[in-house]
């Protein structure tokens, strides 16, 4: 393929691609995102290819290996077009039947369809409540695109926004449009992208850089990963547009090396861009030159902080810079550098194509557009969801997420990762936007949303985040390093049953200082998980300290495992599976756990058949129900 020398060439190519595609042809889009791959979706794909070949149907049916569709709970997911039939939890052994029944016979296979909690089946993807309540502007294209094929992106109007910028708009006009759209950074802080771009553009110096922050560090979130893996060109197009507006000729993508598929797909996408002349010298004959380099991050959460990330790009230790000077003035190699995260860049082509007015019509007063969340934890429908800003947490968790797993009770939702906080039930109607979440003591962060139920211990969650931060802090400044060390120590004491009166006040004292005095955003936000859980769940902390009770039965030192003699039927599953031989009992007789031997590994609790549910965890002054009167058990 020759380089495209003009926008006319690009449009001609696009028409050729579209004309060569038959919209009536059967197409099966199979999710090959990280979640579905873990469910062996690649074997499903291989089975389809083999089976179609064998029946000489390979040229009648097109298999598209796509990125993540979002509904990870029910993977592997596939959608058959043009009918939009959505099959879930597909296994390789289902493939022959799908071909026979659906592709050849035109019949829907009911057992592979979505079944709602009310038992109602849905055939079409868009009818499934999980998808129905979303607005997938950024993430929605994933399911139509093979990320390894730039033509798929072009067929969906890809690079049209770039072409428009290069030929119809001046850099100032592009910048003004993004500014007017009030696009706020999706990586955490929510700083307006337009203002950041302008600061870099106006900073003195001829050499400027644009950077994609794909160092998704929140340990419970994977939306940036799925976007990069599934639709890399949407991010790259945004980056080139930003570079044009800012006046940069070199861009960096900082991507975690733990995301090998994203690194591969990015590399291939860049090659294809170069081949088409969408990257390099004189892009689309506009005279604008731009190159992109990929830098793999070697694993450091703190490197997601913008100045630390820039140090990493220079090959140094990814420590935040202490200076009070913005990276838009002095970033990589001391030059003006504009950094935005993956999702922010992916919004740019949409804004250019559809206009700032369209964009600002979505969302709330202060937060425009949509946001992608990774909805995970104790929720029924684990997955990636994209909703307009301003939707309530309740709608996300209950309408889209399908409520809490196993009929348990909702307790809290954690947003913003290690920099965020927990939000209790009474605030579930909170509209999700940057400002409302910050006001509630949490933050938007990059979009992690971890749902917690009655079996989640809030003290343990705070301890969890501090353990993460103790390892991930760079260790340079005292408030962060020593503050986290001692806060973590206190939380460990509390979870261990060694808490004392005054510990909570001490936690608050350290937390307040660390928040105000730390050198970078990591330290300044590190106390949030502690402060927010203390604010909304103080009683739970007090129970740990005063009554040595962990009401959620999570803190190992405060929990003992017992077998309820009224429920145990002596099936022996626990005894056989106990790794330390702590359980004894005769067949068909109630079993007993030797507490001295028990390592609290949870295996007995997991293997006890649900119809008995005899293994019980107790904490504090909790006791087993009184033994049933003799004789009753026989009946």
């Amino acid at each position, binding site marked *: 393929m020759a380089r495209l020398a003009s926008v006319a060439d690009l449009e001609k190519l696009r028409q050729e691609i579209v004309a060569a595609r038959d919209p009536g042809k059967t197409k099966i889009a199979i999710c090959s995102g990280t979640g579905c791959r*873990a469910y062996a979706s690649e074997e499903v794909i291989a089975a389809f290819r083999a089976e179609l070949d064998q029946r000489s149907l390979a040229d009648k049916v097109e298999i598209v290996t796509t990125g993540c569709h979002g509904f990870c709970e029910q993977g592997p997911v596939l959608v058959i077009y043009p009918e939009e039939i959505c099959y879930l939890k597909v296994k390789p052994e289902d493939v022959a039947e799908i071909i026979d029944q659906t592709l050849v016979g035109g019949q829907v296979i009911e057992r592979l369809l979505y079944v709602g909690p009310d038992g109602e089946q849905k055939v079409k993807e868009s009818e499934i409540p999980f998808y129905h309540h979303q607005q997938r502007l950024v993430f929605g294209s994933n399911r139509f695109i093979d990320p390894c094929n730039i033509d798929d992106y072009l067929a969906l109007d890809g690079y049209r926004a770039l072409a428009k910028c290069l030929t119809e708009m001046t850099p100032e006009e592009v910048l003004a449009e993004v500014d007017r759209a009030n696009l706020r950074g999706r990586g955490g802080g929510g700083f307006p992208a337009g203002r950041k771009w302008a600061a870099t553009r106006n900073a003195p110096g001829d050499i400027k850089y644009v950077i994609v922050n794909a160092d998704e560090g*929140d*340990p419970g979130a994977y939306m940036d990963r799925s976007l990069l893996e599934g639709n890399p060109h949407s991010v790259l197009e945004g980056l080139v547009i930003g570079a044009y507006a800012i006046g940069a000729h070199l861009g960096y993508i900082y991507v975690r090396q733990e995301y090998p598929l994203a690194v591969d797909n990015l590399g291939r996408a860049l090659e294809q861009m170069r081949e088409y002349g969408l990257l390099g010298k004189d892009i689309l004959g506009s005279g604008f030159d731009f190159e992109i380099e990929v830098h793999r991050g070697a694993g450091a959460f703190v490197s997601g902080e913008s100045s630390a990330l820039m140090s990493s790009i220079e090959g140094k*230790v*990814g*420590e935040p810079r202490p200076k009070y000077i913005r990276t838009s003035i002095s970033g990589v190699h001391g030059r003006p550098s504009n950094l935005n995260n993956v999702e922010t860049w992916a919004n740019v082509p949409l804004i250019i194509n559809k206009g700032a007015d369209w964009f600002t019509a979505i969302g709330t007063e202060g937060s425009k557009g949509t946001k992608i969340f990774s909805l*995970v934890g104790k929720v029924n429908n684990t997955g990636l969801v994209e909703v307009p800003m301003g939707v309530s947490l309740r709608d996300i968790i209950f309408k889209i997420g399908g409520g809490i797993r196993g009929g348990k009770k909702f307790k809290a939702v954690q947003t913003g990762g290690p920099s965020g906080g927990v939000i209790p039930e009474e605030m579930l109607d909170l509209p999700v936007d940057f400002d409302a979440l910050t006001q509630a003591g949490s933050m938007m962060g990059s979009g992690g949303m971890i749902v917690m139920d009655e079996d989640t211990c809030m003290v343990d969650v705070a301890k969890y985040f501090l353990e993460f931060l103790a390892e991930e802090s760079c260790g340079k400044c005292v408030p962060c390093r020593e503050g986290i060390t001692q806060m973590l120590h206190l939380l460990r004491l509390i979870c261990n049953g060694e808490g004392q009166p005054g510990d909570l006040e001490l936690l608050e004292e350290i937390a307040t200082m660390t928040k105000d005095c730390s050198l970078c955003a990591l330290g300044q936000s590190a106390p949030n998980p502690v402060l927010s859980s203390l604010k909304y769940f103080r009683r739970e902390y007090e129970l740990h300290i005063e009554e040595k009770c962990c009401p959620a039965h999570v803190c190992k030192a405060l929990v003992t495992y017992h077998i309820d003699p009224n429920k145990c039927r002596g099936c022996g599953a626990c005894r056989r599976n106990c*790794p330390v031989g702590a359980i004894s009992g005769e067949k068909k007789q109630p079993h007993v756990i030797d507490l001295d031997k028990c390592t609290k590994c*949870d*295996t007995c609790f997991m293997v006890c058949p649900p119809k008995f549910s005899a293994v019980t965890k107790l904490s504090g002054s909790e006791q087993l129900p009184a033994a049933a009167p003799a004789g009753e058990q026989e009946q």
Partner: protein
Amino acid sequence: MLGTVDRIIDSYGARQEALVQILLDIQHELRWLPRPVLERVAARLELPLNLIYNVTTFYKHFSLVPQGRHSISVCVGTACHVRGASRLLGRVSEALGIKPDETTADEKFTLKTVSCLGCCALGPVMVLDGEYMSNPNSTDIAELIEKCE
């Protein structure tokens, strides 16, 4: 070994700013970073050894100790954590007799923790040599370990 190192350094034109990328490639090929390798990198890039050690002990991906033949990772991302990842980690740790980031004496297994693998629906997840498992109990783990050569 040093031939491999030189080849990787040359592929980046021995540029100082490519240090992290070079070390990543070496780590990928050798699976750990022995001292002579770090000295070679320092000499070739004309960087002091204290900086090389600073970088290699700062980023989590670099290993200064040899790795086991099999790798077991337990996801300790937040979603897995609230679904019981620490109990799972405890079971694996007990079965192998090592703590996270350690390698068994026979250099057979290295136990690692990772943060979010992007398959939260399976959580808590354990990965053995690339194969994903959802919340295995003690018996399952013992069987899996037994099967490894």
